[in-house]
């Protein structure tokens, strides 16, 4: 951990477009404040590149508050960098030391094609949600607090699943590029609440089918996704998705 300004070497993946062959390019940065976020460090890099008339590094970012799921970046072999429970925008340069070499790559998966440099196309996640990650009735106004009794543990568990910001770190870190943690979180946030029940078994079949169609890999339970998830989504969700899937396929008489 550094408290002094530092000099760093960055190795950043540069790729012109989806079709181009990319490569890692070295950049030297000096006088980087430890209080900068990782993305602010990239802003400094890009300002320097623009000054020199070079093309800035393209990367995804939006809220910079750790809640939107836009920022990505595979930093020194880990999604969102070395810290647990944070996104790249909440990673600060104090987590690095003077003289460090930092390798920054885009998320890598068949289902997440690189758009440019560090930006990947995560619309596969949108299509998985569109396949069934919703309830098809208007819920109307907020109900009276006690009209839909839900046990607290169940509500908590649903909310924990709903904390998923869809950043794709689970896919990025999984050695199989599997999206099961994401999909299971999106299934679990609805499967545990009364409003999600009518479509529960239809939903799991549709979303799993879409996940497979997108070309994500198969889960081998290494647990890397859970360890790297900035929102702490639990593997329990994958087990719940598996249970619902088996119920849907082997017990339910309705098929999609």
């Amino acid at each position, binding site marked *: 951990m550094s408290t002094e300004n530092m000099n760093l070497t960055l190795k950043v993946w540069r790729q012109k477009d989806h079709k181009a062959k990319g490569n890692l390019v070295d950049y030297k940065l000096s006088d980087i404040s430890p209080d900068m976020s990782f993305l602010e460090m990239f802003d400094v890099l890009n300002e320097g590149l623009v000054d020199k008339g070079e093309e800035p590094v393209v990367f995804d970012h939006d809220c910079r508050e750790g809640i939107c799921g836009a920022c990505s970046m595979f930093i020194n072999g880990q999604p969102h960098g070395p810290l647990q429970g944070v996104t790249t925008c909440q990673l600060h340069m104090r987590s690095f030391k003077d003289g460090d070499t930092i390798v920054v790559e885009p998320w890598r998966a068949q289902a997440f094609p690189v758009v440019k440099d560090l930006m990947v196309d995560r619309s596969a996640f949108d299509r998985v949600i569109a396949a069934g990650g919703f309830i098809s009735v208007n819920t109307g106004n907020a109900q009276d607090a006690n009209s839909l009794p839900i046990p607290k543990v169940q509500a908590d568990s649903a909310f924990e699943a709903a904390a998923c910001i869809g950043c794709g770190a689970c896919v990025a870190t999984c*050695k199989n590029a599997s999206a099961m943690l994401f999909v299971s979180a999106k299934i679990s946030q609805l499967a545990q609440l009364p409003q999600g029940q009518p479509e529960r078994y239809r939903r799991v079949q549709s979303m799993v089918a879409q996940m497979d169609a997108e070309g994500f*890999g198969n889960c081998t339970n*290494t647990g890397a996704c859970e360890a790297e998830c900035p929102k702490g989504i639990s593997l329990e969700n994958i087990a719940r998705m*598996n249970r619902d899937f088996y119920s849907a396929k082997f017990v339910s008489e309705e098929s999609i």
Partner: protein
Amino acid sequence: MASFGNAFSSSIGKKLIMGITGLFLILFLIVHCFINALIFFNDGGLTFNIGAHFMASNWLIRAGEIVLFVGLIAHIVQGARLTFQNQAARPVKYAVTNGKANSKWYSRSMGLLGTLLLIFLIVHLSNFWVVSRFTGIPTVDANGHEDLYAVMKETFKELWIVVLYTLAMISLAYHLLHGFASAFQTLGWNHKKYSPIIKALGVWYSIIIALLFAAMPIAMYAGIIN
């Protein structure tokens, strides 16, 4: 029309096949290990040969052997398919990965450990299974049973075989260390009360089975049992 649809061809269904066949093989290993452990009676293999004779002559066991081979082949074929599919899901690899920060090396190496076990299995089956089923066990013991124990003793006179078996059992221990608990997770058995028990049971199971199996060729080679 209700149908099972893509139940087994989906990503979850493929895992289910791995999990169920894996648990079946785990059960088989218990039987295999404890019958083999009869050699530790150190009575010249008389007790062990009774066990071996029973396993070879009981029709239920022989029918079970067919199921065992189906399960084993399904586990191997499905495992290989999954490994190739999972590699294809990331066509461009990372320049730097830091797997040890988030997972155990053996959980990421099930394909490699499984391949080592497959190589071992080919040697192992030709050592014993082919002999007892096809080429025939040459001698009988004092009880008149086929002397599989003598075949064991003869096989484990070779140092390279003992080394191969020991290395294979290390692979087996790590393969089981991940596989045992992983199979339950795949079946959806993730529960705050039971998961810690399953995990602990998996660790003990992996260590005990691998140690017992490894002790057999080593003890025979070292002459601890005759």
